[in-house]
C-alpha cells in the first residue's frame, strides 16, 4: 500500500500492528488486546483525517496509485464485457476503454478512462490521458448506444486529454468537442461517475450525462491545481492554494448543483475497501438507471440538455 504524506501517522500505527501480529505468531504471546487497541486508534485517526481532508489532500487521494481504476470497476460490476477498440479513422487509444457489457443483467455501453496500476499498464493506457482517437472511439460507442437504445455508463478518471504534437495534429479539440456533442445528443440514459480525477475538457467529454455522480474523495476541475497555480500565481508551488480556490471537491460541486450525487467512500478512501466502493457505485448506477429507464430517448436528451443549460444561469442578473 502506498501512503500519502498525511497518512504517515496511520501507516506507522498499521506497521506496528503488523509487527505485533508477527510477534504473536512467533512467540505465542497473546497480544490481541494490544492489537485491538491500536486498531481502534487507526480507525479513529483515519476517520478524523478523512472527515476533514483539504482540497489538496483530496486531490492526492483522487490520484492515489492504489485507488481502484476503471478496469477494476469493469471487472467488479459488469459481465459479458466486450471491449470494442478503435475509432475507425486512425487508431486505438487505450487511455479510454469501452464497449458492450451487462450491468446487473441489463445490456449497456460502458466507457471509461484507465490510468493503469504499474509502469507497464500506465504506459499501455498512457496514464489515462486520451488522444483524439480515444474521444472518437467514444463517439462510435455513443452512436451504437443511440441506435440500439442502450443506456451508457461512464467512469471518469483522467488528468486531462494528452497534450502532444500528434494529438493536436489529429484534432484533439475537435475530438473532445464531438464527444461532448455526442453525449448531449444521445437518445438513451447516460449516467456518469467521477471515480478519481475529473480533469477538464478530457473529463467532460464523457461526463455530460443525465446524472453525474462523484465519489466522496474525487475531484473535478476546469484545470489541475498545478496548472492553475503556474498560470495565476506564476508558481507551481502554489498548487494547494489553487486547489482551495478552484472549489474542485465533490462536496463543492454538489453545492454548485453541477453534480447530482456524492457517493460515500469506505473509511480511509476507496483504496482501503474496494469491494465496498464497487458495491456503492453499482447500487447508485442501478438506482439512476431505473429512474431514467422510464423516460423515452427524446425526453432523456431534452432533460440532459436543459440541465446543462441551467448551469450558472441562477447567478446571472
Amino acid at each position: 500500500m502506498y501512503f500519502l504524506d498525511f497518512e504517515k501517522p496511520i501507516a506507522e500505527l498499521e506497521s506496528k500492528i503488523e509487527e505485533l501480529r508477527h510477534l504473536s505468531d512467533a512467540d505465542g504471546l497473546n497480544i490481541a488486546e494490544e492489537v485491538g487497541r491500536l486498531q481502534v486508534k487507526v480507525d479513529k485517526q483515519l476517520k478524523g483525517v478523512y472527515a476533514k481532508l483539504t482540497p489538496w489532500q483530496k486531490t492526492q487521494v483522487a490520484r492515489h496509485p492504489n485507488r481502484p481504476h476503471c478496469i477494476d470497476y469493469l471487472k467488479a460490476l459488469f459481465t459479458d464485457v466486450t471491449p470494442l477498440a478503435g475509432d475507425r479513422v486512425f487508431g486505438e487509444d487505450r487511455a479510454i476503454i469501452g464497449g458492450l457489457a451487462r450491468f446487473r443483467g441489463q445490456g449497456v455501453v460502458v466507457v471509461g478512462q484507465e490510468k493503469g496500476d504499474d509502469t507497464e499498464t500506465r504506459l499501455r493506457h498512457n496514464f489515462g490521458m486520451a488522444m483524439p482517437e480515444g474521444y472518437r472511439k467514444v463517439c462510435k460507442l455513443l452512436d451504437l448506444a443511440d441506435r440500439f437504445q442502450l443506456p451508457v455508463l461512464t467512469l471518469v478518471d483522467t488528468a486531462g486529454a494528452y497534450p502532444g504534437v500528434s494529438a493536436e495534429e489529429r484534432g484533439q479539440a475537435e475530438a473532445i468537442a464531438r464527444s461532448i456533442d455526442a453525449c448531449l445528443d444521445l437518445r438513451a440514459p447516460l449516467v456518469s461517475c467521477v471515480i478519481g480525477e475529473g480533469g477538464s475538457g478530457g473529463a467532460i467529454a464523457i461526463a455530460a450525462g443525465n446524472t453525474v455522480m462523484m465519489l466522496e474523495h474525487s475531484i473535478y476541475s476546469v484545470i489541475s491545481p498545478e496548472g492553475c497555480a503556474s498560470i495565476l500565481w506564476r508558481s507551481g508551488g502554489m498548487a494547494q492554494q489553487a486547489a482551495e480556490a478552484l472549489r474542485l471537491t465533490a462536496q463543492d460541486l454538489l453545492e454548485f448543483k453541477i453534480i447530482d450525487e456524492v457517493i460515500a467512500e469506505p473509511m480511509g478512501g476507496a483504496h482501503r475497501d474496494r469491494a465496498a466502493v464497487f458495491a456503492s457505485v453499482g447500487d447508485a448506477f442501478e438506482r439512476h438507471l431505473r429512474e431514467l429507464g422510464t423516460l423515452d430517448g427524446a425526453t432523456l436528451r431534452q432533460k440532459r440538455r436543459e440541465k446543462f443549460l441551467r448551469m450558472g444561469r441562477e447567478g446571472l442578473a
Partner: protein
Amino acid sequence: MNWLTNLVRPKIRNLVPKKDVPENLWVKCPSCEHMLFRKDVEKSSMVCSRCGHHMRLPARKRLEMLFDGGNYTEIQLPVPAPDPLKFKDLKKYPDRLKDAQTKTGEKDALIVAHGWLAGMPVVVAAFNFDFMGGSMGVAVGEGLVQAAEVAVQQRAALIVIPASGGARMQEGILSLMQMARSTVAVQRVREARLPYIVLLTDPTTGGVTASFAMLGDVTLSEPGAVIGFAGARVIENTIRQKLPEGFQRAEYLRDHGMVDLVVHRKDIKSTIARIISIMTHRDAPSELAPAYLSTVEETDSPLPLPPPGDPEAAARADGRPADPSDEVSEDDEGPEDPTQHGDK
C-alpha cells in the same frame, strides 16, 4: 547647447498634446516589427501591409466589418454573476473583472448582435480577447446560448468569432460546464437547419476550441491564427522537444484537416456571404461578384477572376494569380498592400 536641450526639451514635450505622441501615430507590426502608419493599417483592417500579419481586433470592429453598413442591433446580455466561487489568486476575481471592464468598456468577453450580412439575416457572437484573454465563463456561455436562441427565432445564420485563451479559471467548474452549454446552443441551431459558421481568429485555444468553436458547419480561420487545444508551452514541457514549424497555426490546422478554409481578412465578409447564401438556397448576393478558383489546388480565399471562357483565364490557370493587382513584382520585398484591393 546641452544646458538648453536639458532645460527646454522637457517643457516642450509637456506642451505637446498626448494624442500626437508618436506611439499613437504609428503601429508596430507584432510579426515583422515594421513601423506602420496607423491610419493606413486601420484602413486595411489591421493587416500589416508588409508581411500580411493579421493583428487582433476588438469584437466591435468585427461586427462593423461583417454587418451591412456596419449597422447592427446588440443583444443585451445579462450581467455576469460577480464571483460565484469567491475566487482569489494574486488578485480578487471581481477586481480582475472590473479592470477588464474599465479597459474594454464591455461587460464581459462576448458581444452578440443581429442584423444583415449581404442582405441575409445573421446573428454574430464575437469575442474580445482584451477582456481577460477572451476567457469563457458563465456570462460568455449565456451569450452563446442567447445568440443561438435569437438565430433560431429569426431563422438567421449564426456566426461565432472566437478569440479566447479558453475557460475562465476564476469561475472554476462553472466555466468548464460552459463547454456543454455552448454545445447545446450549437445543437439548437443545427436542429433548426440553420448555418453555423465559425471564424477562428488569433488565438483560439483550450476549452473554447474543444467545444462550440470546433463544431461549425463550416470552419474558417484568419491566416496565421494560433488555434489549438493544449498550450504550446504545456506541450513543449510534456514532450521535451521543439515544436514543428507553424505548429497550431491556421494553415497547419487546414493542412491537417481541421479547418475548412483560411481566409484573408478582406475576403471574410464575402466568403461568409457566399457560404450562407448557398447553404440557405438564396441567390448570390447582388453586391458580390462571382468568385472563381484559380486552380483546383487553391484552397484559400477564392480570388476574383474573369469568368471561364475568357482565353486569358485558361492561360492563367497554371496557378499564377490572374488579377494583375495580385502580382507581386520582383523588387517587392513582401506581399503587396492588401488595402489596394480590399472589398470596401
